[in-house]
């Protein structure tokens, strides 16, 4: 009997796959970056970005869409963008959720642990301004309330296409 894994691998190798192909960097994000990056834009990262995701208080909706961009359908890695396990390996911190006061210190330390040059991207409406959780005794606000933010990706949660467009804009900008 041919084991199922052999069949599945063969199918993936031989047939056209399901990946979506057309993506353009987000215009709004590019403009936003042009302002914030300045000289740092000259950094040469070789069209490769390492991202560390930090959930600073999210409802987990944004994380689901981050997972989606890593799936074969959107396949973020083909653009040279890769999620890494430690802030010490990262160029970009992708912050989701309103920053809860209980996570503020952890977020601050995660940013400090990321070597320069680094960029902080606030992903999702909550990370931008606290979203529907703004004003709570337990919430500091958006990511910018605790750490400097270079770029935002709006949405509740942002769709995978928006996430990729935002990250591609970052890639274009840092490529100089």
């Amino acid at each position, binding site marked *: 009997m041919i084991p199922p894994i052999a069949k599945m691998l063969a199918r993936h190798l031989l047939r056209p796959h399901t990946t979506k192909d057309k993506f353009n960097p987000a215009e709004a994000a590019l403009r936003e970056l042009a302002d914030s990056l300045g000289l740092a834009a000259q950094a040469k990262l070789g069209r490769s970005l390492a991202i560390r995701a930090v959930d600073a208080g999210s409802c987990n909706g944004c994380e689901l869409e981050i997972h989606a961009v890593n799936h074969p359908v959107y396949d973020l890695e083909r653009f040279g963008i890769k999620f890494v*396990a430690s802030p010490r390996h990262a160029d970009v911190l992708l912050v989701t959720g309103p920053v809860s006061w209980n996570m503020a210190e952890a977020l601050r330390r995660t940013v400090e642990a990321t070597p320069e040059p680094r960029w902080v991207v606030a992903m999702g409406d909550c990370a931008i301004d606290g979203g529907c959780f703004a004003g709570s005794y337990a919430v500091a606000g958006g990511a910018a309330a605790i750490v400097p933010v270079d770029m935002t990706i709006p949405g509740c949660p942002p769709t995978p296409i928006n996430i990729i467009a935002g990250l591609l804009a970052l890639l274009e900008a840092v490529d100089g």
Partner: protein
Amino acid sequence: MMGNVTLLEFLSMGREVANHRPWPRYQLDAKGWRQLAEQMTVSNWEILAEWGEPAEVHVLLRGEDSGAIAVASHPCPDGAFFALGQVRPAAIRLERAIRDLWGLIPEGLEDQRPWLDHGHWRVSHPLGHPRQYDGGRHVYKFLTAEGDGLHQIPVGPVHAGVIEPGHFRFHCQGETVVRLEERLGYVHKGIEGLLAGKPILDAARIAGRVSGDATVAYAIAFARAVEAALGQDAPPRAHWLRALMAELERVANHLFDIGAICNDAAFAIMLSHMGALREQILAANHAIFGHRLLMDRVVPGGVSMDLDEAGRQRLAALLPRLRHGFKRAVALYEQTPSLLDRTTGTGTIQGTLAHRFAVSGFVGRASSRSVDARRMPGYPPYDDLDFTIPVLAEGDVHARVQIRIEEVRASLSLIEQILTGLPGGAFLTALPMRAGEGVALVESFRGEVAFWVRLSETGKVVRAHPHDPSWFQWPLLEAAIEGNIVADFPLCNKSFNCSYSGHDL
């Protein structure tokens, strides 16, 4: 203590509170509350949720055999109550949280450490009688383990993967975990504080973001609690459309989690395969309902948008593709011995422990608990639909995967039945403005979500409390990992996939 007494018989010695629907609420004095705790030592009544108010504590109870549900309330003006955690360990963390948020002291509770309050809010007891708090460091004392060659591994709150934050403290001897202690509360957003005083529709938006992966289930629970409080049912078509969305959510989450469990056993192809399958559901959601996760599509009074014929056909066409892809994945799982070797016998939860914690969802059903809110207490349209509730006794990672596999099959069948039998008519009804209290129990993909609300005559939420099934699943994860190796923790953790946000509130 009384012998054979049902939950409702027992509670009827208290004062019944008017306008609490669909299940009654009784107020008990200090003596009655204590008798309740004593009675619970001989009865098998289960705690479904426990929460506070500035001078009152509430517990949602289920009489296990009869399935009767009721709320017992205990006004405690002196700021203390007899802790039910002494007779039901599942309530310990709930009562620690009640103390943090409302300042009510759970008397007799051995563990008096704070739970959600990490000392960063600048205010103590934010939902009770708030007092400015100058900061100062909370030192959290972790439980210890003693013996030769023990070492600690602290993990989190920022984890290596793309997951929510929480802290795990492992005590290990070599590779073997001797004790795991969780510390949660990092994503506490003060949701109950935000819900209070909000107009119903604004509150519904927040309710749908208590735990983003179960947004449909939370939105249904909130909507049903509001509708119960107002005594106004949603139209039949709305019930069916809600169930359709709930089952789509269940399938999408189960698919992804089965893939992620296998990925944590270093079997990455399953995650890719399941990710592609799941994407088909989310893309259909987006095309038909305008939101990939279906947020804000269930609202009090019904649903915010209808399903048209094109949408119905698209979903009907999607089902065979999902079934086909899923069948392949199951074959791959069941015929890969190296994978089964990792999941079988790993992270076992005994049925007795599962019953003691009244754990719901696939964690409970993999450990011989046949509970499912869709069947008991039940809510429409599930009484008109045909589905089985899988139950296994093994309680290991493999059993939890198997339960989820069966639930995917059952949900796909439910979606098919809903698409065929969907009744016509309105999908949204106007809600009257009146005061009342309501409670609802809804089966999310994770287990039973409870929502309690009190509404004012002006159409606002006075107070609300959401309860996530994870409250009772998190403690069992500590038990599941004991005696396993550290490398199997991701596997065990993912097989539970508890919510941090839903728990931390």
